[in-house]
C-alpha cells in the first residue's frame, strides 16, 4: 500500500490551490473598470469593415494593402502553428501507449492530417462555410466542391470577389482562410484516435475519421462559424472549445463505448489495472508542442492581426494553460497522494481547451480561474471514466469533451460581453456535443456490424504494430512480446 496519506502535503497542496483560485476570484470582483475599458476597445475594433470592393482599390491604397498583407500573413503563420499540433498529438498519444502500438498510432495520426486537409479541400470547407448557399437554412448548406477560388481566373471582379473573403468581413485571401480552417478540422479527428488507441482496427478507423471530417465536423461547425442557427442565437465559441474539442471528445466517447476497453484493463474483481505509457518524455514534448500550436489555434481565430485582440488572446491562452498545469499537478497531489506527471500534462491541455471558447472575451484573471477549474475537472474526469469502465488511454474524453463543455459554459459566466449567457452557451455546446455523440454511435456502430472495429485478442496482445503493419517501432531494443 502507499504510505498513509501525508496530510500535511495534502493540506499544503489544497491551500495552494485555494489561493490560486480564491485570489483571482477576489481580484475578479475588482475587474469592473478594466472590463468596461477593454470592452469599449474591442467593440471599436470589431466595427471596422473592409472599405475596398476591387483588387485595384485595395492595391492602390498602400495602407489598406499593407494591413491586408499583415492580417493575411498572421493567418498563414497561425495555420502553420496549428499544423505543429499534429506533431504534438503524435507524441502525446504514442508516449501514453505501449511501445508495441507506436507505429499504429503514428499511422493513424499521419492519415488524419492528410485526410483532414484533402477532405476539407474537397467538401469540408464549403459545407462549413456555405456563404449564402443554404439547403436547410441555418442547418445544412453547401457552397460547391473545392476551395472556391482558382488561380487561373483572371477576370478582375471575379478575382476580387472570389480571392478575398471580404464579403464576410475577413481581411485575408480565400486560400489563407481555407488552410487555417483545414488545420482545425484535422485536430478534431485526431482526438478520437487517442481514445481508441491500442485496440481499434485501422480500416474502420480510417473510414470513421473520413466521415467525421467530411460530414460531422463541417456541418456542426457551420451552425456557428458558417453563420448558421447557433450564431443567429448568439452562441459564442471563439476557437472551438465545442466545435473542435467537444466534437472530438464526444465522438471519442461514442467510439470507446462501441469499441470496449483494452484487454486486461478492467479486472473481473472490479480492480483497474493501469497500462503504463512507454515514453513520458515524449508525452511532455508533445504537450509543449501542443501549447505552442495553441498560440496559433487561438491567436489565429481572431481572424486578423489586430494587435489588441491577438495580444489579449495570447495572454489568456498562456495563462489558462499555466493555471491548468498547476491545478492538475497539485490536484493530483492532493487526491492521489503524489503529483502525477501525466495528469499535469493533461491539465495543461485542459486549461487550453477551457480557454478556447472565450480567449478574446475574458480578462486574464478570468483565464486563471477557467484554466484552474479545467485542470481540476480533468483529474476527476480521468478517474471517473476509469471507474465506469470507459477506457481512454490518453484522457482525450476528459480533456476535450469535459473541458470543452466547461470552456464553452465558462464564456457565459466570465465573458465581459453581456450578450453571452450560460443558457445560450449550454444550448450550443449540448446540441453540438450530442450530435457528435449520436453521429459517432451510429456510424461506428454500423462499422462494427459491417466489418468489426476491434483487432483480435491475439493481435492486441502481440501489438498492433505487428498485426496491422508488420513493423516494429523499436526493433533494436524492444523484443516482440507474445502473450
Amino acid at each position, binding site marked *: *500500500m*502507499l504510505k498513509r496519506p501525508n496530510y500535511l502535503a495534502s493540506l499544503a497542496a489544497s491551500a495552494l490551490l485555494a489561493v490560486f483560485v480564491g485570489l483571482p476570484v477576489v481580484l475578479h470582483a475588482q475587474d469592473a473598470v478594466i472590463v468596461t475599458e477593454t470592452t469599449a476597445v474591442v467593440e471599436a475594433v470589431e466595427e471596422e469593415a473592409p472599405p475596398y470592393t476591387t483588387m485595384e482599390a485595395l492595391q492602390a491604397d498602400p495602407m489598406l494593402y499593407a494591413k491586408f498583407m499583415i492580417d493575411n500573413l498572421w493567418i498563414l503563420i497561425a495555420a502553420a502553428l496549428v499544423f505543429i499540433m499534429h506533431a504534438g498529438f503524435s507524441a502525446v498519444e504514442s508516449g501514453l501507449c505501449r511501445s508495441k502500438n507506436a507505429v499504429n498510432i503514428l499511422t493513424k495520426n499521419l492519415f488524419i492530417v492528410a485526410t483532414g486537409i484533402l477532405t476539407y479541400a474537397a467538401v469540408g470547407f464549403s459545407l462549413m462555410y456555405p456563404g449564402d448557399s443554404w439547403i436547410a437554412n441555418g442547418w445544412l448548406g453547401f457552397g460547391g466542391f473545392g476551395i472556391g477560388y482558382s488561380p487561373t481566373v483572371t477576370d478582375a471582379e471575379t478575382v476580387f470577389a472570389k480571392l478575398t473573403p471580404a464579403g464576410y468581413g475577413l481581411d485575408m485571401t480565400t486560400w489563407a482562410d481555407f488552410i487555417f480552417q483545414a488545420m482545425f478540422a484535422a485536430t478534431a479527428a485526431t482526438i478520437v484516435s487517442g481514445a481508441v488507441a491500442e485496440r481499434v482496427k485501422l480500416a474502420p478507423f480510417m473510414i470513421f475519421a473520413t466521415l467525421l471530417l467530411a460530414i460531422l465536423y463541417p456541418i456542426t461547425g457551420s451552425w456557428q462559424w458558417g453563420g448558421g442557427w447557433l450564431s443567429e442565437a448568439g452562441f459564442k465559441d471563439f476557437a472551438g472549445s465545442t466545435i473542435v474539442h467537444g466534437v472530438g471528445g464526444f465522438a471519442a466517447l461514442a467510439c470507446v463505448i462501441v469499441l470496449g476497453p483494452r484487454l486486461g484493463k478492467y479486472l473481473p474483481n472490479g480492480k*483497474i*489495472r*493501469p497500462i*503504463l505509457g512507454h515514453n513520458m518524455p515524449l508525452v511532455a514534448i508533445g504537450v509543449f508542442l501542443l501549447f505552442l500550436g495553441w498560440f496559433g489555434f487561438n491567436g489565429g481565430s481572431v481572424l486578423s492581426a489586430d494587435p489588441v485582440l491577438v495580444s489579449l488572446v495570447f495572454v489568456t491562452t498562456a495563462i489558462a494553460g499555466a493555471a491548468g498545469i498547476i491545478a492538475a499537478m497539485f490536484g493530483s497531489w492532493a*487526491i*492521489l*497522494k*503524489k503529483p*502525477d506527471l*501525466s*495528469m499535469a500534462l493533461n491539465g495543461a491541455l485542459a486549461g487550453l481547451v477551457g480557454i478556447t471558447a472565450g480567449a478574446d472575451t475574458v480578462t486574464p484573471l478570468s483565464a486563471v480561474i477557467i484554466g484552474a477549474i479545467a485542470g481540476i475537472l480533468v*483529474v476527476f474526469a*480521468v*478517474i471517473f471514466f*476509469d471507474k465506469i469502465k470507459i477506457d481512454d488511454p490518453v*484522457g482525450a474524453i476528459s480533456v476535450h469533451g469535459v473541458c470543452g463543455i466547461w470552456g464553452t459554459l465558462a464564456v457565459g459566466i466570465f465573458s465581459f460581453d453581456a450578450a453571452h449567457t450560460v443558457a445560450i452557451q449550454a444550448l450550443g455546446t449540448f446540441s453540438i456535443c450530442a450530435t457528435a455523440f449520436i453521429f459517432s454511435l451510429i456510424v461506428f456502430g454500423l462499422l462494427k456490424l459491417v466489418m468489426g472495429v476491434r483487432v483480435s485478442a491475439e493481435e492486441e496482445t502481440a501489438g498492433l504494430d505487428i498485426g496491422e503493419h508488420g513493423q516494429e517501432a523499436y526493433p533494436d531494443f524492444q523484443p516482440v512480446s507474445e502473450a
Partner: protein
Amino acid sequence: MKKIEAIIKPFKLEEVKDALADLGIEGMTVSEVKGFGRQKGHTEIYRGSEYTVDFLPKIKIEVVLSDALLESATAAIVKAAKTGKIGDGKVFVSSVEEAIRIRTDETGEDAV
C-alpha cells in the same frame, strides 16, 4: 571448472566487477533481470489506479572460472555486493563440463 551466477543489486555492478578484476578475473557476462526473494515489491500509482511492482530490477553476473579461484571469487563477490539491507541477492555455484574459446579452439581451463 565452476560457474558462478550472482544476482546482485544493479548499483553494485561496478564494485563487484572491480573486486573480480583485482583477483585476475576479467571475463564475465552480465544481464539485466527482474526478480524478488523475500524482499517485497512496492506500490506505484498511474492516473489514479494503484498497482504493485513485485519484480525488482537486478543484475545477474555469470562467471566461469577454474576451481582454484572459486573460493576467493565468491568471497569477493559477496563482500562487494553486500549492503546489509534486504534484497542484496544470492550467489549460486555449479559445475561446468566444458568450455571452448571460439577464436582459438582452446578447451578446458585454458579457455577460461
